C-alpha cells in the first residue's frame, strides 16, 4: 500500500473513505442496488434511525445514554394521530406530538441531570413508562388516521425526493453545524470530555444536559410523526429496539461512549452502514436466520476497520 493511500484510509476521515469503497463494491456487485428507486427506498428506510441519531450523538457525546427513544417515537406518533383525529386539525396534532416529545425528554433530563440518577436506569424506566402510556392510550391497538392529508407529510415530494428524506438531510446539516460551530456543540463535547473541568470553567452542565435530552425528545417526536404518516397509523408497538440501532449507528460512526468525541459525518456513515446492510441482505435474498449472523459480522467488521485506523493514529491519555 502506498504511503498516501494508507494515510487516506487511516486518517481522520478513514471511516468515510472505507465506507465509500464499500459502497462502490456493493454498487458494482449487487444487482438492483444502484437504481434510483432503491436509493430512495434505502434512504427512506433509515429516516427514523437517521433523525434520532442526530440528537443521540449529542447525548452520547455528553456521556449520557438514552434508551427511551424507541418508545418516545411510538408515543409521539400516537399522539400526533390521536390529537389530529380529536381536534380535526393536523397542525394541532403535530404541535401536541412535538410538545409531548420534548416533555418526555425534559423529564429524562431533569431526573438524570438534576437528581443525578443513572441515565441508563432512568431512560430504561421512561422507556417502559412511555411505552405503557402509548399502549394505555390506545388500548394496545393501532389508531388509524382520519384525515388523509396526514399521509401527505410522508408522500409529498420535492425535486423527486420524498419529504422525510429532506427532513433527515436538513437535520443532518443543522446538527452537524450545531456540533461544530456553536457554543452549544462545543459545550456538549466539553461536558463529555471532562464534566468536572467543564463545570469548573463555568459551563452550566446541568442545564446543558437537560437541554440535550429535551432536544432528543423533540427530535424523536419529528421521527414519530413522519413514521406515523408513512405507516398511515399510530402504532403503540412501533420502533421497538430502535434505541440499540441508533446507538450502534452512532458508535459505528466514531461517537465515543466515554463522551467527548463525535462527528456528524461519522454518524451519517454509521446510519448508512446499518441501512445498506439490511437493504443488501434483502436484495440478495439472504435467509432470515443468516441475516442475524451477517448483521453481527458487519457490525464487527466496521468497528474493526475503524479501530485499525485509530490504533494507527495512537493516543496515550
Amino acid at each position, binding site marked *: 500500500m502506498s504511503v498516501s493511500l494508507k494515510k487516506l484510509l487511516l486518517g481522520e476521515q478513514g471511516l468515510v473513505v472505507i465506507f465509500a469503497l464499500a459502497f462502490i463494491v456493493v454498487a458494482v456487485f449487487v444487482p438492483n442496488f444502484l437504481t434510483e428507486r432503491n436509493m430512495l427506498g434505502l434512504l427512506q428506510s433509515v429516516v427514523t434511525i437517521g433523525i434520532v441519531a442526530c440528537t443521540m450523538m449529542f447525548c452520547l457525546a455528553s456521556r449520557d445514554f438514552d434508551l427511551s427513544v424507541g418508545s418516545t417515537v411510538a408515543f409521539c406518533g400516537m399522539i400526533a394521530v390521536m390529537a389530529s383525529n380529536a381536534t380535526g386539525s393536523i397542525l394541532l396534532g403535530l404541535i401536541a406530538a412535538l410538545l409531548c416529545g420534548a416533555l418526555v425528554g425534559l423529564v429524562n433530563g431533569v431526573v438524570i441531570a438534576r437528581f443525578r440518577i443513572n441515565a441508563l436506569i432512568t431512560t430504561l424506566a421512561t422507556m417502559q413508562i412511555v411505552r405503557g402510556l402509548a399502549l394505555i392510550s390506545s388500548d394496545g391497538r393501532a389508531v388509524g388516521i382520519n384525515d388523509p392529508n396526514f399521509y401527505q407529510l410522508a408522500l409529498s415530494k420535492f425535486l423527486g425526493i420524498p419529504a422525510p428524506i429532506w427532513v433527515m438531510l436538513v437535520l443532518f446539516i443543522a446538527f452537524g453545524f450545531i456540533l461544530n460551530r456553536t457554543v452549544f456543540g*462545543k459545550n456538549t463535547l*466539553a461536558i463529555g470530555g471532562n464534566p468536572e473541568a467543564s463545570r*469548573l470553567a463555568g459551563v452550566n452542565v446541568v442545564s446543558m444536559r437537560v437541554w440535550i435530552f429535551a432536544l432528543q425528545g423533540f427530535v424523536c417526536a419529528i421521527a414519530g410523526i413522519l413514521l406515523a404518516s408513512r405507516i398511515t397509523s399510530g402504532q403503540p408497538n412501533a420502533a421497538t429496539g430502535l434505541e440499540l440501532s441508533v446507538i450502534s449507528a452512532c458508535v459505528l460512526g466514531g461517537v465515543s461512549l466515554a463522551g467527548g468525541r463525535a462527528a456528524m459525518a461519522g454518524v451519517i456513515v454509521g446510519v448508512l452502514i446499518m441501512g445498506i446492510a439490511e437493504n443488501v441482505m434483502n436484495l440478495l435474498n439472504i435467509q432470515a436466520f443468516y441475516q442475524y449472523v451477517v448483521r453481527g459480522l458487519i457490525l464487527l467488521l466496521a468497528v474493526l476497520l475503524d479501530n485499525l485506523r485509530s490504533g494507527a493514529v495512537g493516543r496515550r491519555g
Partner: protein
Amino acid sequence: MASFLEFKNISKGYPGVQALSDISFAVEKGAVHGLMGENGAGKSTLIRILSGDQSADTGEISLDGSVQHYSSARDAFDAGVIVIHQELQLVAELTVAENLWLGRFPAKAGMIDFKKLVSDVSQKLEAIGIDVDPRIKVANLSIGQRQMVEIAKAVMLDARVIALDEPTSSLSSRESEILFALIGKLKAQGKIILYISHRLDEVFRLCDSLTVLRDGKLAAHHASLAKVTRDQVITEMVGREISNIWGWRARKIGTERLKVEKLGGRLLPNPVSFDVRSGEIFGFFGLIGAGRSEMARLLYGADHRHTGTVTIDGVAVGGNNPRHSIEAGMVLCPEDRKFDGIIQGRSIEENIAVSSRRHFSPLGILQPGKEARLADRFIEKLRIRTPSRKQDIVNLSGGNQQKVILGRWLSEQGVKVLVIDEPTRGIDVGAKAEIYNILYELAENGMAIIVISSELPEVMGISDRIAVMCQGRIAAVYDRDAFDERKILAAALPDRSAAAVA
C-alpha cells in the same frame, strides 16, 4: 488601604474530617498572598470554597467589603474570581484555544467566532511567553505543557482575584520563571493573587504576605514576610524543625544494575542509552516536554517500544507489558497521578496493596489482615492524613494521594530498579524529607533508583549523577562533584534555532 478579599470564620467538614475550622484572614489589593501547610491542611478546600465549587459550612467570603453568596463556579467568575485548581482541569479532546475559552466562548447568536478564538489565544500565549500551538488538542501535550495552558487561563479573563493552587508542581525553573513574570505583571495591575505552593523558595520570592494552615486551623498569619525565616515557617507548618531536607549522604555504589540501550518509541524518536548502578540514585532533569516521562514509560514497558533493549542484572526485560517489568524487579511510579496513579473509588488500603498483594495471597485468596497492616504502616511512615485506611482515595488531598501511590511502590518486594517520575509533586516539606530518607535507605540496600524531576534543587540535592534531557535526547550527564546549576540549565535549554517545535 482597605482589605479587598476577606475570609471570615470559614469552616468546612467532610465525613470523618474537619477540613477547615474557623479560618479568618484578609488580603489586600495588589498583593501576592501565600498559603502554605502540610498535605491535607485544607489549602485546596479553602480555594475550592473561594471558587464557588464547594460551599462552606459556616463563614463567609467578602470581596471589596461586599459579602459573596455565589453557589457555582459560574457565579464566582462573574464576581471576578478565577481559580487554577490543583488537579488539571482541561478537556483533552478540545484544542488549547477552546480550553482557554471554555465557559465563555466568543460567540454571536450562539455561533462561535473561531477566528477570534484562535487569534486572541495566540496573542495572549505569546505575550506571556508560553510556547504552545493553540490549535492542537490538549491530549497531545505533556503534563508540563498542560500545566502551562492551565496557567494561561489566569489571564484570559479580567479577574479581580486569581488563586493558583500549586501551579509549579511539575514545572521546571524555566517555565516557573514565566509564571513569576506573569504574576508580577498581574500584581502591578492591582490584582489580588492567592498562591499555594510547597516550595519555600518560591513563596519567599513572590509573596508579600503569608498564611499558614495546620490541621485545618489557622497556624500563623504574616502580614509581611520581611522578618520571617524559612525555618520558622516550616515549624509553623509541620510542628517540628527540619534542618536539612535533602540530607544526602554518601553511600557505596556497586556494579551496573540497569542497562538501557537505544531505547526509542513514538514520542521518543531519538533512542537513548544509559546505565544505572546498584545503590545509585540517577536523576533526570529537563524542561517540560523534554521526553523524560516518555523515556520512563518506555523503559517500564508502559508504552510501545520501537527500538532498544533493557537489561536488569544482565537479564533482558521484555517490553510492552508492565507486568514483565514488575516481575523482573523494576517498578515505575508514574507522574500523572490522576490518570495513571490513583484507582478511583477504591480505598487507600486497596490502592496500596494492588500490586504487592500477590506476595501474600496464596492461591489468589486475600489475607485482609496483612493488607490492613501494610496500609497502616505506610499511612504512618508517609504521614498520610486520613480518617481511616478505608477512605476512598479520591477524598484525599492531592499530596496525600501522591503519598499513597508512593506507598504502593515502596511496598513492593524484591525491587531492583525503582523509577519515580516527579516523586514529590505536591508533597509538603516534612514528608519530602521523609521520602528522601526512604530513597537513601533503599539505595543503600542496593537498589538502582531513577528520579525524574523538574525541580532542579531536588535533582541536585539527592542524585548521585544527573542526566539532562533536551528535546528527546540525553544532552549531558554530570557526576555529583560536577553539579553546577548553570551548566545543567544550559544543557537543558534547546538550541534556539531548533526550538520551533512545541
